[in-house]
């Protein structure tokens, strides 16, 4: 029995190795294989709302407007070639590009936009909240769509690149049980169809989605833009990042989307692998409570400014890569102040400010932060550096790392006098910065920088920025707000670390994107 078992084993190994050799002979087709821990809950654009569905949607559907390839710094045309906003900020009129076609060959018309937006709203699926502020959508002619909002929202345009607002082929969806009527939540039966077919105008179409196994995309023959390089894109589900790493090394996958920083470090120096780095949109910052009872000396605006002058910004960038953001608005979002416009380290100035505030010999303070690593950034390491930086200006910091949930509770309830946290934008729009100003969530609830504690001139500026619909004027207002915060604010943003992705060395054109993660149509293989 023992020998028999051994022979079976040997035979299986040999047969397996031989046959896997045969099967890996590639066909002429250009194939891209992406390894990813699948999180897709639905491939119906009005229902799916996960990371995986995001980049699959990007390949098969188009939206009215979009962001540039690498960031969210401006709004660009996609299916709409131009748009106008009414003076009251309530009416958006989009002019559609001529000649766009769905995979079915049907032209993309204003009726399709109306259908898609109404279906999103009425289906009440996970992403429906994004359409809450839409009062009505009308097609005034086949190429013109008018969207009316319930209340002015200058960030509306930067919501539109969200996959929820993809324009779908209304004719095909209706033929397969879909509806945009008010009772869509119960009457619409198109999900099963949309999980296995795509009805968009993007460069690819969905060939199949086998849940928990793989998703396969093939070229859309009716795509009107530049044809993508790969004929076929296979997104294979590999839930464990350690397995993704091994499969990437073996060359079975071209891209591994979920590797940890340690795993990427282990790939360094492998000639078959390239590691692409670029700033993500997470900002690490210090919080200084504005309430003297909670913040003590940290509540003094002069001390807060001194802390901003004391930090060794280049040092943090050397540790984690990335950039020093000019404010708590992530670099890459329209209007964000970049590293060039950020505050520079000036130890003498910091000491002088502390003396003016009445602390010529410094003071002692406790720094609260979660004992945690996020996207490869170890917060303990940063906390030690903060301790060292502030010691140079005379502030003696005691580190108080806490369990994440416990620390989070203290932070959210505004009980931290001096804290270290990070933030990822809720919206890829300058409006996100309002969270860090009086009246906004982080400032008001967590740093207790309430409107009552703020200068009237700042509050006026915030109100102006909230309602301004002219994009240029609006961005200018947000720049003023950020410049204000560099001088007066309860926060000290110090680093926006890099995000790292590992891919095979012959893959070109990879860019990380804050909205859709990656655009497979931009990728190619060097030959």
């Amino acid at each position: 029995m023992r020998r028999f078992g051994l022979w079976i084993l040997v035979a299986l190994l040999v047969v397996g190795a031989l046959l896997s050799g045969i099967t890996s002979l590639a066909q002429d087709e250009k194939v891209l294989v992406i390894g990813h821990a699948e999180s897709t809950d639905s491939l119906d654009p009005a229902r799916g709302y996960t990371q995986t569905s995001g980049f699959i949607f990007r390949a098969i559907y188009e939206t009215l407007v979009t962001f540039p390839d690498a960031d969210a710094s401006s709004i660009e045309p996609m299916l709409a070639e131009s748009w106008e906003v009414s003076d009251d900020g309530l009416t958006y009129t989009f002019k559609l590009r001529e000649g766009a076609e769905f995979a079915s060959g049907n032209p993309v018309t204003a009726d399709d936009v109306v259908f898609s937006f109404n279906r999103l709203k009425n289906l009440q699926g996970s992403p429906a909240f994004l359409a809450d502020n839409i009062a009505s959508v009308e097609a005034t002619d086949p190429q013109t769509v008018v969207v009316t909002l319930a209340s002015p929202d200058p960030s509306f345009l930067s919501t539109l690149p969200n996959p929820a607002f993809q324009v779908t082929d209304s004719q095909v969806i209706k033929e397969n049980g879909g509806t945009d009527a008010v009772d869509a939540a119960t009457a619409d039966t198109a999900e099963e169809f949309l999980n296995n077919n795509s009805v968009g105008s993007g460069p690819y179409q969905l060939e199949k989605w086998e849940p928990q196994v793989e998703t396969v995309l093939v070229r859309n023959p009716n795509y009107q833009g530049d044809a993508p390089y790969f004929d076929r894109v296979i997104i294979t589900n590999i839930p464990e990042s350690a397995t993704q790493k091994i499969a990437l090394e073996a060359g079975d996958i071209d891209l591994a989307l979920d590797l940890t920083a340690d795993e990427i470090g282990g790939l360094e120096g492998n000639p078959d692998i390239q590691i692409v780095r670029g700033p993500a949109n997470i900002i690490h910052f210090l919080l200084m409570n504005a309430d003297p009872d909670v913040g003590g000396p940290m509540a003094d605006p002069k001390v807060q400014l001194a802390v901003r002058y004391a930090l060794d910004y280049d040092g943090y960038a050397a540790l984690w890569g990335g950039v020093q953001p000019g404010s708590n608005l992530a670099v890459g979002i329209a209007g964000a102040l970049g590293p060039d416009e950020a505050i520079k380290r000036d130890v003498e100035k910091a000491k002088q400010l502390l003396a003016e505030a009445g602390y010529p010999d410094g003071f002692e303070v406790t720094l609260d932060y979660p004992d945690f690593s996020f996207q490869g950034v170890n917060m303990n390491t940063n906390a030690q550096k903060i301790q060292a930086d502030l010691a140079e200006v005379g502030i003696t910091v005691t580190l108080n790392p806490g369990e994440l949930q416990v620390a989070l509770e203290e932070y959210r309830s505004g009980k931290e006098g001096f804290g270290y946290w990070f933030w990822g934008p809720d919206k890829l729009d300058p409006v996100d910065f309002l969270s860090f100003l009086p009246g906004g969530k982080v400032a008001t609830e967590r740093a207790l920088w309430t409107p009552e504690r703020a200068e009237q001139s700042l509050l006026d500026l915030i109100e102006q920025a909230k309602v301004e619909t002219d994009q240029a004027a609006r961005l200018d207002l947000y720049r003023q707000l950020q410049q204000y915060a560099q001088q007066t604010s309860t926060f000290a943003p110090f680093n926006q670390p890099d995000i790292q992705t590992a891919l095979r060395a012959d893959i070109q054109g990879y860019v990380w994107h804050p909205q859709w993660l990656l655009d497979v149509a931009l990728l190619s293989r060097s030959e």
Partner: protein
Amino acid sequence: MPFHLYFLRRLLFVIPTLFGITFFAFLIANAVPADPINANLPQSALNDPEIIAAFRQKWGLDKPPHEQYLTYLGNLLQGDLGTSIKTRKPVADDIGRFLPATFELATFGIIFGILMGVGFGTISAVWRNSLADYLVRGFALIGVSFPVFLLALIGLQVLYAQLGLVAGPGRLGVRVSEPPVVTGWMTIDSILAGQWTTLGDALSHLILPSLILGSYVSGMIARVTRSSLLEVLGMDYIRTARSKGLSERVVIRRHGLSNALIPVVTVIGLSYGNLLSGAVLTESIFAWPGIGRYMFRASTSQDFPAIMGVSILIAAIYIGVNFFVDILYYFLDPRIRLA
């Protein structure tokens, strides 16, 4: 006892056990201090009482627990396991899709486990206290105690990434065409379709994970085989057999092993049940779309219908395997037949 009576008696034990399990599964699922609302609705919808009420009504969460249980039981008797909150598909369909993958892997795993376990256990008992015995016992200890995920990762790194002897994660290579689904077993389906390349690829994908599962269960099987065989080999009838002049080979096979196997069969049955209920870690590391991963996902999103469905399925598998083992006893142990 005649066979049909024995069979019926065993079967009668199964029914109350199954009911008990539905009850406990329901109790535990309801006792967890977590609200499926939090796991299944987007953050923004949590502030909207209307959406929350609609969700509760849709999934019957607004009814008192005993009513929920009775409704569930009623549906269960009609073969309806409910609809998964996460996948929005009938739980029975989901199980039908994910179970064959686990079934195939567990079967290959248990075959490797039996081959290695019984083989090593026999060697160890026959050459008791020899070097071979120590080696085998050391191996068994490692098999039982070495973390499966580590073994799996080392196996992948060496046999797949470095040497290219076996295929990597998943059931099939991404470029290999799938056979039409008949049984859900890649191997059988590709034989049925005559797709020999696919068969080879499927086997190549099966070897490593089933070897690892096999070595995991073989440790236990080897230890039980060894001690049971040692006990039997000390019996009077073995001495009789030897003194009759039978060859050592015949003594061990015919008289030793066949009598020593009864406790081994029990362990094999339990191990198979264990593998069938989904080896979550192995399935995760090998990206194996099986029932273990499905259960894991269901648990993390508090998908109660799916959790209940899989719990009942796993319990049923254990009960089924045990039932089968009991039936095997009837044939292996003459005492049961004569009692």
